[in-house]
């Protein structure tokens, strides 16, 4: 099926097998392999990308459903040689070890910071009417869809605080 979307600012047109997930389209058809396949079931978050600014699990989404969407992957965050502030913070805080969950963690962080800026509440938000304040507890809760088996969570938290201006 013919599908067109904007990928990291560039127009992309593909003829896709309707069974192909967005993740496999990115990795196998387009050749952007930064988004990772950890579980293929939406349980680990390694495939997290931004669709129209919101984070989703690319493994749970069929590529043909994204006609007209704006998609940003880990490859689209840095501007030439300059890392995105979240990428730079992950590097400086050693917020990863093996690096396999990292693109998903970083995309998820970018999406999460926007959700908080937009005033979205989380499970641990006590006052739903107040402005969203990204406490450590809020960050941990909002990032729990991204597993890190190397368990870099303390360092990921530090990186998010740095990148989010919360340090």
């Amino acid at each position, binding site marked *: 099926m013919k599908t067109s979307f904007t990928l990291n600012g560039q127009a992309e047109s593909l003829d896709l*097998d309707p069974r192909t997930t967005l993740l496999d389209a990115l990795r196998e058809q387009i050749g952007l*392999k930064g988004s990772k396949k950890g*579980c293929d079931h939406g349980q680990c978050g390694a495939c997290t990308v931004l669709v129209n600014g919101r984070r989703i699990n690319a493994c749970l989404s069929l590529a043909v459903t994204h006609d007209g969407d704006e998609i940003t992957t880990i490859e689209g965050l840095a501007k030439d040689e300059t890392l995105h502030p979240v990428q730079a913070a992950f590097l400086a805080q050693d917020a990863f070890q093996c690096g396999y969950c990292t693109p998903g963690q970083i995309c998820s962080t970018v999406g999460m910071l926007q959700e908080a800026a937009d005033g979205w509440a989380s499970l641990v938000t006590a006052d739903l009417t107040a402005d969203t304040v990204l406490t*450590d507890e809020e960050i941990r809760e909002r990032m729990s869809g991204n597993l890190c088996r190397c368990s870099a969570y303390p360092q990921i938290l530090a990186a998010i605080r740095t990148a989010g201006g919360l340090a």
Partner: protein
Amino acid sequence: MSSVKDWAAPTPISENRSGLIGKGVNRYEGRLKVTGTAPFAYEVEAPSPPAYGVLIPASIARGVVTSADVSQAKSAPGVLLVWSPDTVPAQGERGARINPRSQRGSNPALAARVEHFGQHVGFVVADTLENAKAAAALVRFTYDSVPADLIFEDCLDKAEDPEGEEDVRIGDFEAAYAKAPVRLDASYVSPLQNHAQMEPCATTAWWDGDQVTVHTSIQMVKGGQHTLAETLMIPSTQVRLLTRYIGGGFGGKGQSYDDLTLAALAARELGQPVKVAYTRQQMFQATIHRPAVQMRVRLGAQADGRLDAFALEAVTHCRREAPFTEHAANFARSLYAAPNRLTGHRLVKLDIPAAGAMRAPGEASGMLSLECAMDELAEQLGLDPIELRLRNEPETDPETGKPFSTRQLVRCMTEGAQRFGWDRRNPKPGQVRDGRWLVGLGMAAAIRGNFLLPAKAGVRIDADGTLTLRQGMTDIGTGTYTILAQITAETLGVPLSQVKVELGDSDFPPAPGSGGQFGAATAGSAAFAAGMNLRRALAELATGDPNSPLYGDDPELVTFGGGNIAVDNRAEPLDVLVARAAPEGVYVEGSITPAADARDYSQHTYGAHFAEVGVDPDTGEVRLRRMFGVFAAGRILNAKTAMSQITGGMIWGVGTALHEYNAVDPRYGSFIAQDLAGYHVPAHADIANLSAMFLDEVDDKANPMGIKGVGELGIAGAGAAIANAVYNACGARIRDYPLTPEKVLAALP
């Protein structure tokens, strides 16, 4: 063979003139990882577009594949190849020299004989992943099943001595235990756990004539290369194995799996590159796991807490055809003083996937027993748990009498107690409340052996002054790239930016790979040796070159620093020297072997964990509130990556204590949890306020750099500290891990 005495002399590492050793520099490959451009095995660019392989698992636990109907699959769209036990190409027997303890001698992929649920019995290759998956679902197998032993607890009467092992007895445990005025006899269960690395096993393979190139996700380069060569019945020189980035290993990728074998076989058959990845479900069913361990601890003490008698007996399991013993009692042989001692293991053989090494094999499960038993004994004696341990601190190794190379366990405990605020602990359980939460503190000791294996490394300097270290070593997220760059830069006195590190290639000088927390010491010592050899070569080059300001100087007096080679105030930049005197570059190798007298010392890493938990008395939920660890592990090469290793290990301990277990379905022999929703590894929300520190230490009996491993120490004892905190919080003493809500509720006093 060298002696540990050779290792005490000053070196560029101990002098650390540019301060790179210990510095928390960013990861060498970090930029690639945060930009998503580090190519993992499935992502490597093949010389031509690859075909996609998909594995098909068996649905019985034990028996034989009697038929495979592949007709529909073969005619499905895009299918290039379908293999079943009767059509898979012949494979050589895997040699016993490859990981004989966890991998049986003969293990062809797609064998007709099914030895566990999930063993692969079919394989499909197609032009796209979607076509391969669809075709794989069309293959139909029939089986002859035979009865299988599946449930550990039901087969305990079949436990036997592990081959070639005997109990270790010192003194007369039974007599001393019978006479002891204070006794504790408690049994603990550590359940079956899965590695759950984020990156599933994967291989991309292609052939060029009779040479095969494989990119695969494996912790041991040489093991994978030789295993594949034996399987393909070709010399190892015809197999080039690369493993540059590995998405987590934790012991589970210490060996190769069917993705490697079948990608290589199919690429040969089809004459095009083939790539194969395990699904998450296959990661559970068709790799190794940490086996369950039942442990009985008996402690006999004097009223003052001194142990007279100590026993730790462990029963564990392995796959029937793949003997492996989780040595859950071994750590205890060096931990506490007691004149009468008994430790040993029994093994139950089951028809489930193979048991094998998982982060800190032995300690990770073993310390869950003894470190809780010490907590229980302390309460029985009315002693603080730290004081009980101090009273049983040995002066020399309690079983061998050998001196400790270093041992700062006491300082780990006392320093940790002070920083954590241990004195605020109320020894009586269930006394502290914070809202609805019952709050408690717990601690445990940590010990993990330190090892050094033989290894080589190569280093070259080019005419532009760039140093390139090459080693058949792996970085599984541990920081190997980074510490090898630091060692090389410090040894040659050049800036870090001038050093390149290339790993994970069987063409490079061999190193044993990542495992057993021996990686940094082993690979690093070889890199250091190579660097020292390059210093000598460059000193000879400069002092023998009439155009060098060092011409005629004694090579022994040459120093390196700031990118220069010098004697006194005569100096020249390394790139100038090499460009002039050796424009093709200088390449040398170095090697490390364990010192002959290293075994004269009892050599371990140590630590102490402190945990604060909240227990909800109505739901049984346990939440970590904070956790702190103090560790002594020799000289630390990189403050940042070492800390990440240690805190990562501690978090594994949290998972061990509170979340992680798998169970075997008695009907089929499959695991109940087969994905990351069913098998809960710690998520971000599970981990609060967790930190650690290292004590200053140099272990000059360990290796030339005085370093030790940190990859596994962090998990050792960590779960016990949590369990002890749970008891302190609410009075529920649970000896069956993990401490899930239903167990907590049932155990509340």
